[in-house]
């Protein structure tokens, strides 16, 4: 656990970068510092490993004031990832990753073996180990940066806008990779970003800072979205808070009908029971061989003639947002529920979605297991203070819901029929 106790950073010219910041960074979870430029988020991060010294207040690392620890020793115990990766250009990738193990005096063979293991862990081909940083793409360099930070297995990881210099597609994959790693490693991560979407995606806790270095709000992402403390936080969160918050509501509570048709529309399945799309009732049944193509879940794969696109979601894993999105993609207005293997489970009608949305609107959201994160999270932490529907813990983690499942985030009686 990292604790900020009234931490202030004031520069010689009187500028206050961080103003009396007090917060806790829980062990084994991702805490994101987010805010506009000039809000002191990076300064706050850098005070943890003493790259910047606090003017007043204390920062405790597992109860120990960081100022009692000699900076290099402190830093060797804390992984540090920066924006441009900051790889040493004159060293091969493997030696870059092994930087801290070398500093700690590991023997070369052990350090290199560890480095190779980490390269694999962050999803890099170990063939890259013998290359130099300039031979890698930005995204690859950033992965190496993460591997390097993890090399000596530090319990704490500081990440200073690590993904903001790569293109959006690479950024998304790096974010997913980080969440996957975190699910395995359970590091205490402090992550700085100016991107609120990144904060919401990655954070177990999000601390919003305002210009002048004051804490505006600290909360889990769902609470942040549903109850921003003031206009600044609300403005910073941006538009579509309601819809984005649905990412944190599991779709497991939505009522699913097992019949593959609704009035006017039929679901076309392939030989493995995977949906291919919707066909209107009046369309002719295609002649010829049975359709046997693998449709992708978002319906982007070419569908047979006369079959219209569809949207699908997995009630066991996906959020209500995914379910709503799936419904909006289909001409029938209904979402298709699939199981983990992508096989048809049932149909979710607009009415069923409406009921689930209504429940979600009042309830404190619980975080579904697969809403972009595989990190186990404390579900329903904050339930009970909203007064309305208290989320049922099992709703978030409840596994394979049958086609007629009716458990909802709002508890009993959410939707029992199709």
């Amino acid at each position, binding site marked *: 656990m990292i604790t900020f106790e009234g931490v202030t950073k004031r520069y010689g010219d009187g500028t206050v970068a961080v103003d009396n910041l007090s917060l806790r960074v829980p062990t084994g979870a991702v805490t994101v510092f987010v805010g506009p430029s000039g809000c002191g988020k990076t300064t706050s991060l850098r005070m943890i490993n003493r*790259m910047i010294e606090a003017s007043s207040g204390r920062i405790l690392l597992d109860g120990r004031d960081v100022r009692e620890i000699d900076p*290099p020793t402190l830093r*060797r115990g804390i992984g*540090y990832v920066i924006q441009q990766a900051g*790889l*040493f250009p004159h*060293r091969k990738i493997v030696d870059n990753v092994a930087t801290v193990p070398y*500093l700690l005096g590991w023997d070369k063979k052990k350090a290199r073996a560890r480095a190779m293991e980490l390269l694999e862990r962050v999803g890099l081909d170990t063939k890259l180990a013998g290359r*130099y940083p300039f031979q890698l793409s930005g995204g690859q360099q950033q992965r190496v940066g993460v591997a390097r930070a993890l090399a000596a297995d530090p319990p704490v990881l*500081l990440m200073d806008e690590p993904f903001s210099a790569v293109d959006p597609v690479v950024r998304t994959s790096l974010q997913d990779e980080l969440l996957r790693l975190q699910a395995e490693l359970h590091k205490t991560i402090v992550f700085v970003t100016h991107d609120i979407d990144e904060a919401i995606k990655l954070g177990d806790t999000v601390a919003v800072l305002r210009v002048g270095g004051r804490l505006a709000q600290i909360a889990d992402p769902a609470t942040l979205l549903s109850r921003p403390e003031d206009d600044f936080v609300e403005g910073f969160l941006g538009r579509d808070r309601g819809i984005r918050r649905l990412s944190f509501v599991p779709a497991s509570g939505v009522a699913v009908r097992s019949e593959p048709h609704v009035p006017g529309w039929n679901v076309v399945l392939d030989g493995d029971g995977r949906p291919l799309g919707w066909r209107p009732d009046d369309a002719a049944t295609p002649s010829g061989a049975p359709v046997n193509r693998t449709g992708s879940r978002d319906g982007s794969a070419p569908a047979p003639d006369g079959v219209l696109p569809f949207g699908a979601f997995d009630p066991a894993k996906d959020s209500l947002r995914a379910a709503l999105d799936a419904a909006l993609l289909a001409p029938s207005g209904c979402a298709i529920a699939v199981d983990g293997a992508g096989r048809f489970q049932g149909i979710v009608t607009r009415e069923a979605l409406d009921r689930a949305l209504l429940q979600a609107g009042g309830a404190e959201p619980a975080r579904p297991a697969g809403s972009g994160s595989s990190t186990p999270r404390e579900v329903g932490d904050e339930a009970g203070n909203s007064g309305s529907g208290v989320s049922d813990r099992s709703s978030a983690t409840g596994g394979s819901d049958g086609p007629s499942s009716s458990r909802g985030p709002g508890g009993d009686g959410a939707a029992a029929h199709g």
Partner: protein
Amino acid sequence: MNWLIDFFGDPANWSGPDGIPVRLLEHVEFSAVALLLSMLVAIPLGLLIGHTGRGAVLVVIAANAARALPTLGLVVLIVLLVGVGTTWPVLVPLVALAVPPILVNTYEGVRGVDEDLRDAAYGMGLRGGQVLFRVQVPVAMPLILLGLRIAAIQVVATATVAAYVGLGGLGRYIIDGLATKDFPSTIGGAVLVALLALAVQLCFTLLQRVLVSPGVSRRTRLR
């Protein structure tokens, strides 16, 4: 051309204390000693100033002084002050000539290392000296070598002035040749100095290959 043939064809020029091998050796010796002394002064200073950022004014002064320095005048002055006969007076202007390029390039090289890189190095837990020698110096190596190369070539070229004050080296051929109107000797000496300078250049190119990481010079093939 004939003068060159005269000079290099004369067997008397290839042996004895006046012969080309001896003179060449003397020349290389002066130059090497001067360069080593300059390195001893300029490299630590350049590293220190580049690493700490303190004392940059010194570098600016050195850089400007280098342009204004009258080498020959300095040699004569020193000789007048200490008398003829020893080697070291001639080293003073050579060192004074070689220090600025080494100092300036070492400083620039170290100071110019990417801020992010330094930040990452400290953030990983490297200490100041480790940041300097494990990160800044390797990355600055091409510039440091460039400074040394410039200095070495200037020293080799300028060491001819040693002959003015009665010392050996390839300058003897030039100065004596001029004095006795022995133009083949003058031209031959000049050509030898030029060849030596080229040889120095070549040495540094090879040194660069060995000392600069392929990751910095970016001259490695993808594997």
